[in-house]
């Protein structure tokens, strides 16, 4: 089977719909399309063989069944495996089992696209900051939706469309080019950028001594190997008791002033 330019482009759009996070029902909507079970069927429809697409998509979805994206940190991306993987498998006319072996390694390219996307969007956030200073809500709304989606569209559609059109070879070339140091550096940067968000938030709730609680939360999490849930519960209780004591003293002193 051969894939036409139009078909390749449409499959690229299916991929974009799976990673755009908008405007159809946010990450839920998009993560439905992102699943190979769904995108496989759609790719099958585009390529004229819905049933084959559904079967191959289901097969490719199997290793991604327990996929979780938490805190914006994705393990290998099922979206690419479901679109490009299904397309290449259908084109090659292979069995579902072989389709899996073709599709899974493609996940890595998905990670690259994701990292680029989340890094570029940082600029729009800063532009929205400026809008907030000027009170320009219209522009803020525009910046929130349009430019990030154009970016997502471009970096989502192009590689997938190219991959469909030129076949598996091109894809592995892209991965090979970026792989190694460039990708690693991207990941390192992606790993430390959340520090800005956290620091800005800390600055926002900053009171004398609040940093101590921050470090406490960090040390306890790291050294006792706790997850956020028990830390949040314990912190909530301790915070309530501690502020009760402070308030206690304050009430007393407030009462004093009545004399």
């Amino acid at each position, binding site marked *: 089977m051969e894939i036409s330019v139009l078909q390749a482009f449409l499959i690229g759009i299916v991929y974009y719909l799976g990673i755009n996070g908008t*405007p159809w029902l946010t990450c839920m909507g998009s993560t439905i399309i992102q699943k190979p079970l769904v995108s496989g069927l759609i790719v099958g429809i585009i390529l004229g063989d819905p049933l084959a697409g559904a079967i191959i998509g289901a097969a490719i979805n199997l290793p991604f*069944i327990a996929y979780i994206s938490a805190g914006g940190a994705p393990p290998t991306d099922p979206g690419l495996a479901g679109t490009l993987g299904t397309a290449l498998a259908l084109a090659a006319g292979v069995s579902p089992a072989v389709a899996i072996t073709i599709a899974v390694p493609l996940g890595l390219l998905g990670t690259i696209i994701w990292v680029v996307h*989340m890094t570029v969007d940082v600029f729009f956030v800063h532009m929205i900051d400026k809008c907030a200073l000027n*009170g320009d809500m219209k522009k803020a709304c525009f910046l929130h939706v349009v430019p990030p989606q154009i970016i997502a569209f471009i970096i989502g559609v192009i590689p997938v469309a190219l991959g469909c059109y030129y076949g598996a070879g091109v894809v592995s070339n892209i991965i090979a080019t970026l792989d190694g140091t460039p990708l*690693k*550096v991207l990941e390192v940067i992606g790993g430390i950028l959340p520090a800005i968000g956290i*620091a800005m938030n800390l600055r926002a709730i900053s009171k004398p001594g609040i940093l101590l609680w921050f470090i406490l939360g960090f040390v306890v999490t790291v050294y006792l190997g706790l997850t956020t849930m028990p830390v*949040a519960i314990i912190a909530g209780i301790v915070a309530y008791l501690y502020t009760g004591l402070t308030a206690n003293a304050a009430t007393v002193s407030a009462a004093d002033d009545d004399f």
Partner: protein
Amino acid sequence: MLPQYLQLMMTFNNKGENINMENKVSLSKKDVLSAFWKWTFFSHANYNYERLQASGVLFSMSHLPKKLYPGDEKAQKAFMQRHMQFYNTEPHFGGIINGMVLSMEEARANGADIPDDAINSVKTGLMGPFAGIGDTLWQGTLQPILLAVGIGIASAGNMLGAAVFGVTEAIIMLTIAYIMYMRGYKTGKEGVQAILSGGKMKQLIAAASIMGATVLGSLTASYVKAQSTMNIPLGQAQLSLQTDILDKLFKGMIPLGITLLTLYLLKDKQLKSTTVMGILVIIGIILGVTGIVG
């Protein structure tokens, strides 16, 4: 001096209580629904490494400033800046927080004494727990089950598999999202009044700040990642920079160090956050290229 400060706050608060709930401007059902849908549709439209869902929060309430502070440009700008803070939660379950924030903003616009801290702390303190709850229940539980069902159907050659999965998940998750958001709005409304009339506001803000800061510390451990994979060769043996050296000194010292450095640059050096981002990018390049981290 702390007591004085708190007492001052208290009189301030009394004023708040008097004005309390004249409800000059109240949000209509449509306003709330609009905020809900904009949140649910667009939370991740501009998802990014720096502040994650921040602009999604602002976008979801974009119709509020004009409504709550008609004519008061300063208040409108303050509103916008207030909601560009780092925010990240699981959007469906965590919508309860957005709902609470909505009602706090409403009460504030009506004269209730709710400082920025209070709103910030509610968001910061709760986003982590609800991300954990939501991801576990949805992506970790519901989704695998529905996927298993759908894959089973599709593998048997039935094209309905995808639809069964997709439609069921959409219905369930939208229902959950709606209930959570509305529950948050209602709780917030009642909560705010209860809190204000009880005069316990101060303690709750202080407590929420402490809880928020502690949870942020915990989140730093999960979100800011910088592990060294470097090995120092020693004859036949190897010394791992991370486990044999850094972890023995202080576990997580790189992520914590970078976060504290960032705070220092932002707060004490008063640098713009773009500048700070540039610095972090350079640090990232250096750490990555030298292979210290990665």
